[in-house]
C-alpha cells in the first residue's frame, strides 16, 4: 500500500488521490480576494470552478465565494466554469478583472495569463500567510536549461523584489525600481531572448541600474532647482 500525501494505492493498478476542500479555507481566500479587490479599486471578482462535475467539492468553494460576496455589495461577483474560462482567456482575456480560484485551476490560469502577457520571465507574484510573505515569480519555472548562460530574464525577480520593498513600506524605492524596469523594457527595449531581444541577463540588469541612476539625478536636479528658486 503506497501512500504519498493524500494519495494511496490500495490495489495494484488503482490509485486514489484526495482533493480536499474546506469551508474554512474557502472562506479565507474568498474574503482575501474581495478585500484585495476593494483596496486596489477593482470592480469584479470571478470565481472559477468545476462545480457541475465536482458538485460537493467545488460546489462548497463556489457557495462560500457567493456567501462572502454578499458582504461586498460594491464589488460585482460572478462565476465561470474552468474550461470555458480557459477558452475565454485565449480569445477575450480583457473581460476578466479579479479571478478567485482553488489551487489547481489557479495554477493553470496563472500559467496561461503569463503566456498571454509575455511569458514566465516577466511576471512576479507573492504568497501571503498570517505570519509570512513570500515573493517569487508567477510561474515558478526553475529554468534548468538556462543555468549559467546569462540569458535568463531577470525582470520577474526584480519586480518581485520591488513588490517586497513595497510590502515593507519602502514605497519610494519600489517605485523607482518599477519605473526603471518599464523604461528599460518599453523605451530602451533592452530585452532578453524570451521576449524577443538579444541582450544578456547582465545587460538588462545594468540597464535597470542605469535608468535608476538617471532618475535619481533627475530628482536631485529638480530639487536643487526648487531650492535655488526659493
Amino acid at each position: 500500500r503506497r501512500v504519498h500525501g493524500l494519495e494511496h494505492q490500495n490495489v495494484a493498478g488503482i490509485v486514489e488521490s484526495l482533493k480536499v476542500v474546506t469551508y474554512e479555507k474557502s472562506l479565507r481566500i474568498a474574503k482575501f480576494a474581495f478585500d484585495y479587490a476593494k483596496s486596489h479599486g477593482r470592480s469584479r471578482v470571478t470565481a472559477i470552478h468545476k462545480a457541475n462535475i465536482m458538485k460537493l467539492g467545488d460546489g462548497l468553494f463556489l457557495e462560500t465565494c457567493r456567501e462572502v460576496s454578499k458582504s461586498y455589495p460594491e464589488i460585482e461577483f460572478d462565476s465561470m466554469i474552468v474550461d470555458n474560462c480557459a477558452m475565454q482567456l485565449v480569445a477575450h482575456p480583457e473581460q476578466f478583472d479579479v479571478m478567485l480560484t482553488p489551487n489547481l485551476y489557479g495554477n493553470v490560469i496563472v500559467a496561461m495569463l503569463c503566456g498571454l502577457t509575455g511569458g514566465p520571465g516577466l511576471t512576479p507574484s507573492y504568497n501571503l500567510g498570517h505570519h509570512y510573505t513570500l515573493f517569487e515569480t508567477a510561474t515558478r519555472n526553475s529554468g534548468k536549461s538556462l543555468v549559467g548562460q546569462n540569458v535568463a530574464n531577470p525582470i520577474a525577480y526584480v519586480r518581485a523584489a520591488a513588490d517586497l520593498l513595497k510590502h515593507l513600506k519602502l514605497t519610494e524605492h519600489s517605485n523607482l525600481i518599477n519605473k526603471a524596469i518599464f523604461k528599460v523594457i518599453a523605451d530602451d527595449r533592452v530585452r532578453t531572448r524570451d521576449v524577443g531581444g538579444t541582450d544578456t541577463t547582465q545587460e538588462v540588469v545594468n540597464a535597470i541600474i542605469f535608468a535608476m541612476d538617471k532618475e535619481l539625478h533627475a530628482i536631485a536636479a529638480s530639487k536643487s532647482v526648487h531650492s535655488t528658486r526659493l
Partner: protein
Amino acid sequence: MSFVRVGVSDLLRRSGMMRNAASMRTTYMKRRCSTTATIPITMIPGDGVGPELMTSVKDVFRGTGIPVHFEEVHISELSSHSASLDDVINSLNNNKVCLKGPLSYPTHASEIESLNMKLRRSLDLFANVVICKSIEGIETRHPNVDIIVIREQTEGEYSALEHECVPGVVESLKIITSQRSRRIAKFAFDFALRHGRRRVTAVHKANIMKLTDGLFLECAAEMAEMYPEIEFNSMIVDNTCMQLVAHPHQFDVLLTPNLYGNVVDNVAAGLVGGAGVVPGESYGEEFAVFEPGARHVYSTATGRNIANPTGMLLSAVSCLKHVGLKTEAQRLATAIANVISERRIRTQDLGGQSTTKDFTKAIIAAFLALPSPT
C-alpha cells in the same frame, strides 16, 4: 478501408485488455457497410443551442440528399419529460453511432454524477478526440494550428465520488487506474499512427500528484515503447497551457487524463476560433459519439438563431466518414470550407451578422454547387 495494423491483437492480449482480441469491435475500425437505403444514426439534440444546431444538421442532410436518417432521443437533465438512459442505450445498440448536442446540468442536482458522465460510463466512451485545426477564413492570433487532444473521459477527477465527512470539509476522489491509462495511451498512439502524426505529448501534474498522474505517465511511457516510430514526450499541465497560448506550433497530439483534457481542449479550441467551430468525437469499444469539441450549451443564445453550427456540422462530417459515407463527408467538408473561406456569411461568434439559418442555407448551396463526383 483502413485497418488497425497487424500485431495489435498481440499487444492487446499482452496488455491484458481484451479477453478475445479476435472479436474486437472497436469503433475506430471501419464499420461494416450498411446495405439499407439510408443509414440510421442516433441523435441526441441536447440542451441550450443543441436543438437548433441539430436542426441545421438535419436541414443540410435533407437539402443535400445525404442518405442518413436520425433516430432522435431527447434525453436531458433539465426536462421532466426526458428520455431515459436505457432509451439511449437501446437506440445505440441498434445504430452504434450517435450525433450529440451539449447537455446542461440543473442548478440543484439530485445526484452527484452528471448525465454526461453517466452516458460516457455506461457506453464506455473512454476516448474523446478533439481536432483543433485552423480554418481558412477564420483569423486567429496563431495561424496554422493543428493539434489533436485525446482525453480519457471515464475516470480521473470525474469519478463522482465525493463526500462531506465532517461539516465544512469535502473530499473528492480522483481515481486513476493502470488499465484505463494504458487503454487511452494505446488509443492515442494508434490514432497518431493512423493519421500520420509524429509526436504524442502526455499532459500531467505528476510532480504534485505523484501516484495518480505518475501512474498515468508511466502507462503512457510504457505504451510509447511499442510505437518507436512515434516520438513521445510529456509536459506539466500548467506549462502546457502557457505554451499553447504562446507557442502552439510545438504540439501535435496531446494525451491527457480527464480534467486536464477538458481544460486543454478548450484552450486549443480557443486558438482556432472557439466552441462554435471545433468538432469532437468520442469512442468506446462498441460505440462512437460525435459532438462539438468544446461542449458548451451557450444557453444565452438559445432560440435566437445566432449560434454557429460549424462545429456540429464538422462533427457530422466525421460521423459520415465513420459510417462509410466518405464521398458525402468530403463534399460536405469542402462546402463548409468554401463558405467559411469566402468570409461572406458568418455568425456572430466570428464577428459576422449572419444567422444560424443563413449559414445553413449557404452550406447547402455550396454543397449543391460542387461538381458532382464521377
